[in-house]
């Protein structure tokens, strides 16, 4: 079995928790360390007009490629915004930069000087050139739709170039499917079409681009409590629990998104602390932005609670098997916060065996509809009440970074490496 163990090419950030964790697990399991290809190098190479081929040893046998999370690295963030800029064009692998030099500095083109009722809400956008010299403001959420376009281009290009170097290359998770998992709109639709239970999506004949359209949709469907989620956000970033009281008209929006308005322009941030908005004006600004950038809008279904705290479960699946599971508990509607929410193991919480198997089954069914992906972290909720059912909330292609949880005595990465040996990735 050991003879044909494939080399692992890891595209990620050298030295971060993920890369280090994977390398440690490989050494623990007596496997060769992965070759690490930094996203940063790759993006730079592309900008220079080069490609993946020059960064890898093409003479070596085809590796297994794992794409890891691209986030939490400012150079890469800028690089992806650059790739996603509308004035960024590729011809024969070269970047055409024939556009006139743009306004100096990293000025965003957001028009917010008119009341939003009078204008079509625009997405934030940066020119390709401006994106590269953006200065980082801590926590700020930059042009999410543009970022996502850049990330999709990146995924696409990696897949194409890798297949040129190694026609029989295999991916841990297929880049196309990663793109689909990342887009909550596409992902939830895909799951629904394959019979997986997901929270009902707000019906609408056209994409919802503004608060006004959102409200019209909610009223028409009598769906008074919804989650509005940035289509390409990860974890709790860009998630709003929004409810409207049909009797009084009162509104409440709970979210991690903070807003700062100066000179008629609003910037949006990830806040460490939950924000609660009740003023219609603020709510409108927030949701106009979110809807314009692209949002998944679904029914806010009451989650099962444990000691008055709502919870959901991150269930890791790899090679079709259900492994590590972590419960995330919160007094707020948003359970998947990174830092502040309490975590528990299902066994500690006394979660019933029957409930746990329901969750595992939902997660396993989910990964099956991504036939070219080998592992994912699936977020599953149970409904409140006496006979709960499982609903899939999110599929995270990089959802195996879980701390302080063991399964069969192994950390998530160790477990995956062991499985990888026993049941290597087979999909093309």
């Amino acid at each position, binding site marked *: 079995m050991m003879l044909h163990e494939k080399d692992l090419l890891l595209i990620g950030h050298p030295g971060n928790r993920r890369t280090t964790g994977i390398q440690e697990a490989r050494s623990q399991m007596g496997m060769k360390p992965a070759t690490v290809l930094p996203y940063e190098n790759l993006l730079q190479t592309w900008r220079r007009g080069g490609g993946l081929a020059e960064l890898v040893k093409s003479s070596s046998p085809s590796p297994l490629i794992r794409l890891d999370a691209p986030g939490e690295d400012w150079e890469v963030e800028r690089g992806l915004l650059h790739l996603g800029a509308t004035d960024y064009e590729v011809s024969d692998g070269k970047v055409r930069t024939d556009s006139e030099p743009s306004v100096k500095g990293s000025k965003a083109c957001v028009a917010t000087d008119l009341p939003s009722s009078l204008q079509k809400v625009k997405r934030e956008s940066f020119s390709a050139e401006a994106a590269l010299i953006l200065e980082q403001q801590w926590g700020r959420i930059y042009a999410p739709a543009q970022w996502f376009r850049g990330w999709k281009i990146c995924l696409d290009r990696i897949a194409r170039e890798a297949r040129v170097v190694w026609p029989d290359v295999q991916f841990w998770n297929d880049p196309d499917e990663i793109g689909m998992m990342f887009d909550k709109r596409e992902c939830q639709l895909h799951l629904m079409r394959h019979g997986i239970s997901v929270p009902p999506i707000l019906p609408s004949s056209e994409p919802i681009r503004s608060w006004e359209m959102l409200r019209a949709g909610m009223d028409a469907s009598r769906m008074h409590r919804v989650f509005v989620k940035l289509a390409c956000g990860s974890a709790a970033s860009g998630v709003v629990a929004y409810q409207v009281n049909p009797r*009084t008209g009162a509104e409440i929006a709970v979210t991690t998104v903070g807003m700062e308005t100066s000179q008629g322009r609003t910037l949006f941030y990830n806040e460490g602390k939950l924000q609660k908005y009740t003023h219609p004006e603020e709510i409108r600004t927030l949701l106009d932005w979110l809807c314009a950038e692209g949002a998944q809008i679904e029914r806010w279904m009451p989650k099962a609670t444990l000691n008055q705290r709502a919870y959901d479960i991150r269930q890791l699946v790899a090679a079709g098997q259900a492994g590590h599971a972590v419960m995330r508990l919160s007094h707020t509607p948003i359970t998947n916060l990174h830092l502040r929410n309490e975590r528990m193991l299902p066994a500690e919480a006394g979660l019933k065996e029957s409930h746990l198997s329901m969750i595992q089954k939902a997660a396993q069914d989910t990964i099956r509809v991504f036939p070219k992906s080998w592992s994912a972290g699936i977020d599953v909720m149970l*409904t409140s009440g006496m006979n709960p059912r499982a609903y899939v909330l999110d599929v995270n292609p990089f959802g195996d970074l879980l701390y302080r949880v063991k399964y069969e005595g192994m950390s998530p990465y160790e477990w995956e490496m062991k499985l990888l040996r026993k049941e290597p990735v087979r999909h093309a």
Partner: protein
Amino acid sequence: MQEVKLVVNYDDYEEGIRMETLLQDLAAKPEAATLESLIIGDWGQAYENSPQEFKDTLIQLAPSFPALKQLFIGDMESEECEVSWIVQTNLAPILQAFPNLTSFVIKGSSGLELEPLQHSKLEELIIICGGLPKKVLHSIAAAELPELRKLELYLGVEDYGFNGSLEDVLPLLEKGRFPKLEYLGLKDSEIQDEIAKAVADASILEQIQILDFSEGTLSDEGAEALLASDKIKQLKHLNLSYHFMTDEMMERFKQSGMSVDVSDQQEIDEDDWRFPMLTE
């Protein structure tokens, strides 16, 4: 004790299941005859639908629950419905349909009425809400509840339905109003200081053993009045948990020799806004 909680969750509601159906099913089971505690949780979109939907059914079915002592209507989390958005209705007829009830707990106060409030065996009345309407306070003040031992009211804030003032609370403080009352909770109030000052020397304290001013906006102002009162010193216990008192004031309570809970001290924010606990 036998206890059952009924909940209409999302899937149930979509499938047309209603609290009415769950109550009928429960009444048809043999365990109904010995059931002592019934908790009615989310009845489905409680921000829009009130217990009016199942009220008549529950009243009709009352003879099927001859052993019932405790009834809770509206036990739900904010995940299901914000407490201030829970729609209630006049629940007094339900109380009357269960003459052996000793404990009645209500969560949510929007649209709540208790008229007329009469019960010969009720020992405990608890209303948990974001703001208690003065109409309900008036009904309680005029109630006939000869066995009432514990009265616990979340008074809340104006934004969430507290449309009264101290004037509407005062009638509850007359000695003998409820001859057997031992536990008085006037809590989670935005006028907690005013209430503390009014209660500090009220005649009702001569019959009260436990006074509960927790979860409100109590500060040194109200606390001073409590410390100065001899009647307060006679209490078996004083609950001031969740408060805005200073460290010095807390220390004075600790030194007083009283049985007093001063836990969960809150920080006053820069604008000197003080909020009761249950304001969502």
